[in-house]
């Protein structure tokens, strides 16, 4: 049930006034609040722990809950205390804020719980002291990223009406959604691999013909390689065009990195087709073939890790920029120094400063090829300083990049785990929802919605009946009952709905069952209920699948009492025994199988206006329904 928002039930009920003028049928009577006015205040302080402080301490911050008159809403007259139903541990930090003026964030506390507490007490989190502020901000950011991931997953959920284009786009973006998408995914992956391997193998020298030295395979088996290339490019072109067609925003798609890579991967082939063996351009053409290697980047669609790497590099752009800048600075400095130091020595390779750049880079990155070495003493000294500083300069930004990468990678792993948990969570929520709706349907069947009993029985019997349901439940169910009356339709569960659909397609029995029309009891029948001519009798198709044995046991206990009241209210209580109910709990007995209990309709259906009169169908019902009554008491 909506127990979590029980405090809002008065609102929902009051808002039901919006249905009143529209309703055609009169409303059921509201359940009375028989329990004496309980003060829901349990006289404790912040959930039991009493905190004491001076009033002036609290008055220090008048724009918070505790410092302003808002706390009067939480004052309890009898115990002269302010009661807050909140977490006492978190309250400790809140109160310390008033005492010391500094708000601290306890590390063991969950960040969202803490935020809620602060919001409740009207304290803005920016007041958190410097000692705890960084921790707070870090945790907050982590949480926000987590929530953002959740939202993106929500967008993933299947929309009911998607046209072909949207389905295709979704299939492209998330291969795990359908088998076709998965097949497509693997096929493209395979062809990317094939294409890359072909490019590589093309250049390997394989075999030698007697008159020539080794030729690369590409030239030996030209036709085969050409066919392979064509096939791959075909697939890639088709894939690109399909993606272009399915993209929701074509312009944005064409600008995205992946599509540029796709284009660059297939363009050389087409250019090669177009260009003939022209001598001038073939040089440029060869260069273009280099771009074929970009096909390997297409793998980033298939590999999560590659994408993460790319994303990391993007997010570390500032660190990388710093690295580059500092390296450039150092290179220029050291190259200049080395040039002037080696200027003296003869046959030195350091011919100009740009020529020294190569030496400096190789030395700073500790590669040390050895093709350029200083010969003078000054050159050697500066050379060693260069290599030492190189180590330092490069080592600085690297850990930042590494930590970024690991954070993003772990985040992605968390996302996968969360996706699995989310399915379980949604299933739980769905079950809770069906439980709530089932509770109402069961209650209806139990016939506890009969207001007649409310008004005719005495206090204690009423309380006995109400023992099984709390006041909250009965109020909630009354609200749902009002909705039924407004719309003149009833809630039923899925199985019954299907049955009814089947039946209404078949022949329907002409005899009218007043079960529904008599439900209102003496407050008059519902006009639109009356208008239903062909009501398929629920009894005839009542299957024993509804084995609400628990409810039935409860029912039997309650209805034994009903039977006892037969003395003074036989007719009324029999009205409550709707034939379908009787059929239902007689299913247990298996006495009545599928007998059609046709109770004659109440004579002269009561017009809407005079609801208060005594129930007209007096004697007729009780006699013919006496069999029902007997069966009930037999339970």
């Amino acid at each position, binding site marked *: 049930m909506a127990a979590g928002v029980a405090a809002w039930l008065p609102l929902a009920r009051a808002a039901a*006034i919006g249905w009143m003028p529209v309703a055609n049928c009169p409303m059921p009577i509201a359940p009375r*609040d028989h329990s004496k006015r309980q003060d829901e205040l349990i006289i404790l302080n912040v959930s039991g722990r009493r905190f004491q402080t001076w009033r002036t301490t609290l008055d220090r911050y008048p724009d918070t809950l505790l410092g302003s008159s808002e706390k009067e*809403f939480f004052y309890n007259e009898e115990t002269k205390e302010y009661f807050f139903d909140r977490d006492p541990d978190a309250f400790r930090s809140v109160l310390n804020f008033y005492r010391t003026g500094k708000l601290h964030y306890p590390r063991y506390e969950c960040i969202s719980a803490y935020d809620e507490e602060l919001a409740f007490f009207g304290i803005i989190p920016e007041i958190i002291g410097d000692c705890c502020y960084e921790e707070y901000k870090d945790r907050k950011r982590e949480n926000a990223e987590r929530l953002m991931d959740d939202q993106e997953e929500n967008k993933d959920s299947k929309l009911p009406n998607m046209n072909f284009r949207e389905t295709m786009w979704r299939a492209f973006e998330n291969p795990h959604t359908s088998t076709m998408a998965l097949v497509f995914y693997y096929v493209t992956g395979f062809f990317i691999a094939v294409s890359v391997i072909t490019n590589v193998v093309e250049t390997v020298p394989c075999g030698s013909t007697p008159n020539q030295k080794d030729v690369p395979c590409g030239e030996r088996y030209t036709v085969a390689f050409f066919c392979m290339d064509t096939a791959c490019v075909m697939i890639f072109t088709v894939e690109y065009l399909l993606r272009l067609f399915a993209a929701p925003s074509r312009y944005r798609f064409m600008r995205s990195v992946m599509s540029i890579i796709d284009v660059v991967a297939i363009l050389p082939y087409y250019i090669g087709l177009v260009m003939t063996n022209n001598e001038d351009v073939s040089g440029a053409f060869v260069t273009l073939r280099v771009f074929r290697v970009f096909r390997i980047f297409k793998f980033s669609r298939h590999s999560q890790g590659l994408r993460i790497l790319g994303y990391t590099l993007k997010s570390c752009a500032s660190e990388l920029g710093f690295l580059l800048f500092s390296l450039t600075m150092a290179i220029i400095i050291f190259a200049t120094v080395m040039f002037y130091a080696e200027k003296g020595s003869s046959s030195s390779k350091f011919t100009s400063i740009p020529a020294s750049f190569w030496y400096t880079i190789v030395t700073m990155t500790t590669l040390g090829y050895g093709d350029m070495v200083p010969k003078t003493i000054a050159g050697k000294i500066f050379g060693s300083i260069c290599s030492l500083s190189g180590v330092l300069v490069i080592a600085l930004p690297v850990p930042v990049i590494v930590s970024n990468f690991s954070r993003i990678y772990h985040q992605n792993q968390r996302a996968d785990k969360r996706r699995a948990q989310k399915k379980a969570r949604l299933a739980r929520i769905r079950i809770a929802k069906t439980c709530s709706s089932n509770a109402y349907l069961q209650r209806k069947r139990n016939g506890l919605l009969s207001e007649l009993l409310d008004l005719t029985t005495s206090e204690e019997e009423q309380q006995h009946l109400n023992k099984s349901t709390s006041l909250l439940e009965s109020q909630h169910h009354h609200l749902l009952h009002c*909705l039924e009356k407004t719309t003149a339709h009833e809630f039923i569960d899925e199985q019954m709905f299907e049955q009814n659909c089947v039946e209404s397609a078949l022949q329907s029995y002409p005899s009218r069952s007043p079960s529904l029309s008599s439900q209102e009891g003496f407050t008059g029948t519902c006009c639109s209920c009356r208008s239903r001519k062909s009501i398929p009798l629920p009894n005839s198709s009542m299957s024993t699948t509804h084995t609400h044995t628990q409810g039935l046991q409860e029912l039997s206990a309650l209805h034994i009492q009903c039977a006892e009241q037969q003395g003074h209210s036989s007719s009324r209580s029999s009205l409550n025994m709707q034939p379908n109910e009787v059929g239902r709990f007689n299913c247990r007995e298996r006495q009545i199988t599928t007998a059609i209990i046709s109770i004659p309709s109440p004579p002269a259906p009561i017009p809407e206006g005079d609801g208060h009169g005594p129930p007209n169908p007096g004697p007729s019902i009780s006699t013919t329904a006496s069999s029902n009554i007997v069966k009930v008491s037999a339970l």
Partner: protein
Amino acid sequence: MTTVCHRPEGLEQLESQTNFSKKELQVLYRGFKNECPSGVVNEETFKQIYAQFFPHGDASTYAHYLFNAFDTAHNGSIKFEDFVMALSILLRGSTREKLQWTFNLYDINRDGYINKEEMTDIVRAIYDMMGKYTYPALKTDTPKQHVDAFFQKMDKNRDGVVTLDEFILSCQEDENIMRSLQLFENVI
């Protein structure tokens, strides 16, 4: 995480402005504050809360109209004062006040008239709350029939719209409606 925090007027002031006692106001405020610690309800939260009471169907459209009816200042959020004023009218107000509030609820575009489209929207929203599994099964024109019946009753001069006076008059003539207005008075 909102840093906006709204604090309601004092307890005494609210007590004088509404028909609730101090104790009742306390109870209302505690419930209110529990769901909305920041002191205001926005439409999303309101819809979520309302939907919990109607698990069978979809209560979001009706909740939207309700929200607009509560949010008298039309700024997208309900403060505790708005909440309590509306409840005061609905639970403790006179018949005329209640009917006026209901008229405002139905009059979606606030032009002083209820026309058929507005009424159809409202009735459809109410039927949405029933969900799919009903007996008898809901047909697509059930709301429309309902609206036609309503207009038959309410629109006295047959001009296609219902004014406040027509509405109040027609409701006062109908015993069922009059009785049902008193139904929730003991809610708190």
